[in-house]
């Protein structure tokens, strides 16, 4: 008896697989109500009845062919890692399509447990399933679950343990029809004659895959068999031609039809659907939300409302945190002697990290909104509505999913592009995903929109997001007609039923993303802020000021003491001289020198050397722009006279420059982390192309906006 069990969760996208995984393991995976959430496989451990069960959540797949990365990942795991049991999560309300994967798992002869998830929805819509009979027909135990309510998890684990301890059952054979079966038998005989060594796959399964022209299996056989493969290849080609000539269809189609025939046969006996004769709520709502005319305006309205909500509601807690950091700075300034450490704490750490932490409520609200839209099923509708437009601009309908993920973070969005089977579609989607404004850019927008357009900040931020989408559309069109020529494959978007998002699900999702943001601010951004402060402080100017500022201060003090100037005028004069000194100190520093060196390139966009340094620092992560600005102006506004960053920005720059800076931030590549992932997903050449073209585009657009805009100011 085994005490350690490994189970693999397989299932169609949106079958509730990740929810079942979370219920089984208690892990908090991101659960989205649209296909393609699980790109990588994830693992959790659960103890049950003395067993230690390792649960692996495989990517959502429709079949075990080798058309997409997910399918290959899932299939290779089942074949190579040989889990003790494969648990196939099936959407009960969509049995026929979901069972297609089950038939392929049956073909693989993996120990199998079938989980009919969302059993409540199926029952409510009048579907009746004879579980015992279906289980007998498919040769695998079946358990009913309601993932969103956590029902049935123990039964699943119990079935898994039973399956592990049960004797090997007779394999259920799926028959592919006489012609195909004859060819399988013929090739099997050739395998024996050629003394093909035992492979890790079942011979019949390999032959079926060869008849289906499965590239992955072909490559494995080429490598394993060497010259012997040529003989097999010749025979397979002969079989394919023979089947095609007789049945007027490729073996791939014939085999798929046979699988559906097997499913239909099983369902005919065990499944009954009661016609309710009325539209359910999902269908009624869909008539409006996915309407050809109303669909897109409704989508735009929902997005607009989301940004209004994020900015309007978020500004209150944002101000409270800001006041808190201001008080903390005051306490440090009044209790510590003026010097490097005090400056590091106040200007570097509080000015930098504090500037980023301030936006946590907005980030929380943004992810809360996205979580509600995803979990309710609306995002899948948005994908459906956008599908027509996507095709018009040369994008695959499925591209919408990674593009939406890009509004959260570009890194998983790049990885999410794997759901696109065609390489051209995948690269194109990745190249334009950078224009989907990620959460890290939001603090920059809130800072600048709040500084320059306080009354209409929500609308300004919305306009930046819209410009991002427009740029994505334009670049998709350009890249499709230049670098990635050709048409994308057809695609059918599934529409999951609407579900009221569970409070727990939404809160977990929001918390995970917010915690990521805070963690990033407390680690990498803290470290970068300290390094930026050092770069803004050293080398120290010493006595290398261009003017004798100390002499000027002495003169002002003498005038004040002799009573020739008022206290108010004295304070203003001292602040003005100290401001000039701080400006020279910053310009003398390492960061100042870099900024001034690069300034001529950015001056044409309206940026001074400080904005230049902030934009360069944003390459590390976009939040760093805010922390750099915070540190920079905190150092400049020394001696406890610091004003809120927004006020300082408003005083120093024209709104046109502020808006232009937001545009520049939007358009150049997201961050170094994203570029590392881009390289992993698409290769070094494509990564450099991404960096180069987005930088060029950002510069060109900002140049045009500033040069044209200045004509009107």
């Amino acid at each position, binding site marked *: 008896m085994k005490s350690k069990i490994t189970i693999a969760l397989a299932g169609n996208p949106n079958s509730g697989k990740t929810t079942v995984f979370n219920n089984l393991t208690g892990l908090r995976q991101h659960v989205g109500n649209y296909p393609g959430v699980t790109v990588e496989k994830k693992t959790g451990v659960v103890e049950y009845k003395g067993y230690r069960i390792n649960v692996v959540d495989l990517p959502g797949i429709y079949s075990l062919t080798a058309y997409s990365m997910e399918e290959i990942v899932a299939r290779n795991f089942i074949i190579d890692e040989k889990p003790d049991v494969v648990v196939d999560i099936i959407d009960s309300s969509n049995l026929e399509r979901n069972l297609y994967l089950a038939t392929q798992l049956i073909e693989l002869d993996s120990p199998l447990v079938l989980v009919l998830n969302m059993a409540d929805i199926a029952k409510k819509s009048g579907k009746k399933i004879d579980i015992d009979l279906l289980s007998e027909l498919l040769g695998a135990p079946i358990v009913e679950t309601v993932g969103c309510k956590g029902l049935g998890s123990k039964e699943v684990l119990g079935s898994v343990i039973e399956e592990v301890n049960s004797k090997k059952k007779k394999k259920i054979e799926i028959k592919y029809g006489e012609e195909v079966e004859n060819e399988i038998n013929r090739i099997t005989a050739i395998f024996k004659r050629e003394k093909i060594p035992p492979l890790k796959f079942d011979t019949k399964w390999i032959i079926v895959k060869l008849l289906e022209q499965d590239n992955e299996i072909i490559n494995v056989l080429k490598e394993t068999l060497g010259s012997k493969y040529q003989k097999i290849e010749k025979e397979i080609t002969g079989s394919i031609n023979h089947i095609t000539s007789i049945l007027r269809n490729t073996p791939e189609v014939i085999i798929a039809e046979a699988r559906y025939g097997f499913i239909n046969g099983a369902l005919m006996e065990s499944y009954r659907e009661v016609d309710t004769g009325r539209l359910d709520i999902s269908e009624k709502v869909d008539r409006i939300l996915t309407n050809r005319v109303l669909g897109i305006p409704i989508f735009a309205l929902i997005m607009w409302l989301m940004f209004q909500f994020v900015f309007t509601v978020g500004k209150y807690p944002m101000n409270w945190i800001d006041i808190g950091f201001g008080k903390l700075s005051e306490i440090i300034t009044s209790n510590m002697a003026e010097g490097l450490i005090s400056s590091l704490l106040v200007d570097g750490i509080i000015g930098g990290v504090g500037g980023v932490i301030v936006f946590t409520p907005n980030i929380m609200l943004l992810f809360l909104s996205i979580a509600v839209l995803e979990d309710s099923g609306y995002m899948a509708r948005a994908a459906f509505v956008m599908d027509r437009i996507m095709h018009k601009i040369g994008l695959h309908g499925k591209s919408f999913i990674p593009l939406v993920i890009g509004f959260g973070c570009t890194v998983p969005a790049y990885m999410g592009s794997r759901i696109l089977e065609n390489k051209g579609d995948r690269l194109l989607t990745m190249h334009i995903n950078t224009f989907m404004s990620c959460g890290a850019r939001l603090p920059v927008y809130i800072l600048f929109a709040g500084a320059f357009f306080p009354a209409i900040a929500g609308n300004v931020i919305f306009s930046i997001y819209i410009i991002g989408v427009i740029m994505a559309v334009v670049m998709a069109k350009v890249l499709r007609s230049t670098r990635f020529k050709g048409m994308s494959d057809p695609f059918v978007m599934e529409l999951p039923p609407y579900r009221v998002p569970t409070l727990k699900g939404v809160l977990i999702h929001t918390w995970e993303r917010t915690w990521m943001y805070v963690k990033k601010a407390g680690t990498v951004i803290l470290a970068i802020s300290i390094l930026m402060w050092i770069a803004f402080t050293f080398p120290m100017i010493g006595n290398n000021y261009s003017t004798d500022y100390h002499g000027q201060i002495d003169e002002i003090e003498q005038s004040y003491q002799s009573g020739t100037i008022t206290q108010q005028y004295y304070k203003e004069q001292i602040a003005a001289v100290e401001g000039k000194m701080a400006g020279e100190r910053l310009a003398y520093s390492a960061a100042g020198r870099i900024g001034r060196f690069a300034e001529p390139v950015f001056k044409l966009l309206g940026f001074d050397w400080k904005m230049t340094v902030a934009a360069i620092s944003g390459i590390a992560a976009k939040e760093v722009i805010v922390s750099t600005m915070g540190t920079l102006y905190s150092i400049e506004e020394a001696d406890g006279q610091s004003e809120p960053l927004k006020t300082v920005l408003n005083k120093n720059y024209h709104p046109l420059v502020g808006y232009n800076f937001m545009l520049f931030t939007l358009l150049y590549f997201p961050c170094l*982390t994203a570029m590392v992932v881009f390289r992993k997903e698409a290769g070094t050449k494509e990564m450099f192309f991404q960096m180069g073209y987005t930088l060029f585009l950002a510069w060109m657009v900002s140049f045009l906006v500033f040069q044209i805009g200045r004509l009107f100011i």
Partner: protein
Amino acid sequence: MLEIILVILIGAAALGIVIWFAVRQFKARGACSACPFSDECDKEIEDKCR
């Protein structure tokens, strides 16, 4: 002088964190570089992000 030494130490630590982060990004396989659950990865669930 003490302040300068402290700043050098803090700066070196900060640089270390940034380098560690960058190395982790380049070395990590698959989704690990940005996996939101990477902090939960331990020996028991080591292949979670593989």
